[in-house]
């Protein structure tokens, strides 16, 4: 029975590791400038965690195999080194691992959060609401008009609550249901929620950020590959949560300008 148990543990450990090694199901390809350190951090952590997992499962299985079903005359033995060895091992192994991961992790994190967006970053605003994202571009004047929450009216397509009759800044704002950005340009994404908590997640972009009602947050990123990607909501926001998504098109500069012109005409 014990040997069978040990073999089961070996088999489970190996089978669990195969899809990871083969990348059967894996992270989407990175299309951002800040994603490389995150991916690197991920592979390093995967290596360290994977080795810890396999080694400890194997040792566990081996000990179960070796030390069960004792013969009558057998005596118990104590692990050489005793508890002290274990405590040292834990501090050294995990301590260094933690320190290493911590230090590199800080770098990857700092890349994302501790650098301000460049002055020439393209400003885009995203508003999350049950159960859709809407995007706003400031238009030629480069500034967003003020939002009047009491004027939000979905039937009139006034998703943002803009007062185009009175606010000059609002007149040239372009509101879209799909997000488009020029390739290789830094984007400054300003985020706000009109109702409950939501989140903005684009796996390929290595961006995930919650919308926190009552707080204005922003992220910035640069997409490096032309294509069409999905933005999904990752913060439970109600019954339509699963279906709250939008498309992100990364376009060449010409295509982006053309797209903007078309959207502008539809306002």
């Amino acid at each position, binding site marked *: 029975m014990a040997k069978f*148990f040990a073999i089961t*543990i070996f088999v*489970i450990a190996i089978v*669990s590791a195969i*899809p990871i090694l083969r990348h*059967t*199901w*894996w*992270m*989407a390809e990175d299309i951002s400038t800040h994603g490389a350190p*995150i991916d690197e951090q*991920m592979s390093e*952590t995967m290596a*360290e*965690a*994977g080795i810890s*997992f396999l080694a*400890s*499962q194997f*040792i*566990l299985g081996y000990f179960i195999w070796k*030390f*069960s079903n*004792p013969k009558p005359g057998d005596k*118990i033995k104590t692990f050489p080194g*005793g*508890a002290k060895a*274990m*405590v040292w*091992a*834990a501090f050294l192994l995990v301590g260094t691992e*933690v320190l290493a*991961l911590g230090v590199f992790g800080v770098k*990857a994190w700092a890349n*994302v959060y501790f650098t301000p967006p460049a002055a020439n970053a393209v400003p885009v605003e995203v508003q999350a609401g*049950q159960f859709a994202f809407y995007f706003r571009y400031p238009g030629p004047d480069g500034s967003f008009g003020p939002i009047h*929450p009491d004027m*939000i009216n979905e*039937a009139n397509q006034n998703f943002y609550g803009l007062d185009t009759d009175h606010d000059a800044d609002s007149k040239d704002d372009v509101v879209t249901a799909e997000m488009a950005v020029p390739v290789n340009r830094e984007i400054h994404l300003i985020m706000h929620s009109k109702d*409950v*908590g939501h*989140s903005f*997640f684009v*796996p390929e972009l290595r961006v*995930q*950020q*919650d919308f*926190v*009602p*009552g*707080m204005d*947050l922003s992220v910035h990123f640069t997409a490096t590959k032309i294509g069409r990607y*999905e933005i999904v909501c990752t913060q*439970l926001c*109600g*019954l339509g*949560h*699963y*279906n709250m*998504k939008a498309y992100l098109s990364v376009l060449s500069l010409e295509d982006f300008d053309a797209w903007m012109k078309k959207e502008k005409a539809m306002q």
Partner: protein
Amino acid sequence: MHDTAHAHVGQHAAPTSFIRKHVFSLDHKVIGKQYYGLALAAVLIGMFLSWLMRLHLGWTNLAIPGLHLLTKNGAPGDVMTPEFYLQLMTMHATIMVFFVLTTAPFAAFGNYFLPIQVGAEDMPFPHFNMMSFWVTFVAFLVLMSSFFVSDGPTLGGWTQYAPLSAVGQVGGPGEGAGVVLWALSIAIFCVGQLLGSLNFITTTLDMRTRGMSLWRLPLSAWGWFITSVMGLTAFAVLMPACILLILDHVAGTSFFVPANTVINDQMQPHSGGSTLLWQHLFWFFGHPEVYIAIVPGMGIVSHVLITNMRKPMLSHRVLVYAMGALAVLSYMVYGHHMFVSGMNPVSSLVFSFPTLVITIPSTIVVLIWMGSLYGAKLRINSASLFALGFISMFIAGGVSGFFLAQPSIDIMLHATYFVVGHFHLVMGVAAMFGIFAGTYFWFPKMYGRMMNETLGKIHFWCSFVGAYAIFMPFHYLGLAGNVRRYQAFAPEYMQHLIPLHKFITIAALFTGAAQLIFVYNLFVSRYKGEPARDNPWQGTSLEWSTPTTPPPHNNFGDKLPVVYHDPFQYGVESSTGDYVMQTSPEKAGPDDEA
């Protein structure tokens, strides 16, 4: 006269009426069994809900015959609606976390065995103890009653993030009365656990019998004691949070809902609330809660392992210190649940560090277990299998914590199935294995009959292989960006993951069915099991020294035991074989204090 009077603490005469004996009993053993029964009912309901969810995730448009009987509007034509899925999910999580993982390993086994293991006749405040159970029972009824309100239970997830949880009916179905009942149930539950913690702490500190110093407590008793200290602080914080949430609902206050909230084009009548406030209060409770679920399991597993390895742990004290360190650190790490919540990015790094550090005591615990296995004379039975399975699961669930502790990687894994896989393995399955190990181990003492070993082993194999088959693929899903709390997978990039979901569903149905073997075994063994001897596992701690099995009303008959040893005198040469019981004056070896 003097001694008689001392023994008066917690003492009460054996009840004679049925009601006082089995319903409103003051006896910690009956209360422990009541908690176990509640947890058993809750876990079966919780598991049934997870089956429904899994079926829906594998085959979204599947009609589940009879589903409409469970809900008014949630299943037209027996096909689950999106909101009903989320309601089932929320109820599954709430039932499991509060009414199974907190009640079974801590309140059920702790109530039954802590007083016996310290050598007391009962807990010092038996009336509080009785209230603790019945309050918890009422909390469970309140939670279940939300199935019967017009728009069903809450769908906000067990974390109940504001403002979705606080805006009320306008936020969608399940956001009205369901949330109020949820918060009320949890607030009541907190009262019950606070009363329980009070009894556990005083039992450990004040009710120990002669010779039972703190260091002579078995590791299971240490697990319950440390957990009760955590419970005392954690539940005392959750209760105010629930009160404020209820007020936002029924009294129109604005603790959690900010100004300018627009739902269905309507400005909500709220001003200036803080949504992060709820997250801070909730996770200050929520992270220690994870350890409230797992630390009693660590204690139980250590206790079961020592008895079945026939040798002591490498170090009793190091294990106790490590469990204590887990308890202390668990309060400093809660912010890692909020890495992408818009909290100051510096705080994310501040919270990341203790989160990585908390792996050190966890690793110490695992290494001590494995190092102690070296040179053991390991007995393989259902209890020890589940204890060893606990270690395997704890490792598997623990290593994925490395990922989630790092804010940069959390960008990719936050709110994905990776997180779901992580906590199901490390606190769900591992804690359940602890409960199973405890059940197979202590059932003979609780009911005077042995459980069926063959069925126990079949149950173990199905659960062990099944749990890995269910929860390992969760990690793959998470890496591929599969977001949790989705009732169906609308985004295109998730389409290729659906076959994996189908596999998980089949594994879950199979593994869940295997749990019915356990339930069958419990009931059949209860009435038809082989009669148990007083000390079937040749254990040393005080629960094996009771004069009868199950123990009499006052646990030790007319004489309280006197303790001469540490609880781990195994692998010695003695008149009884290879162990010396705590109550035996026999000297166990050169280092023994007796």
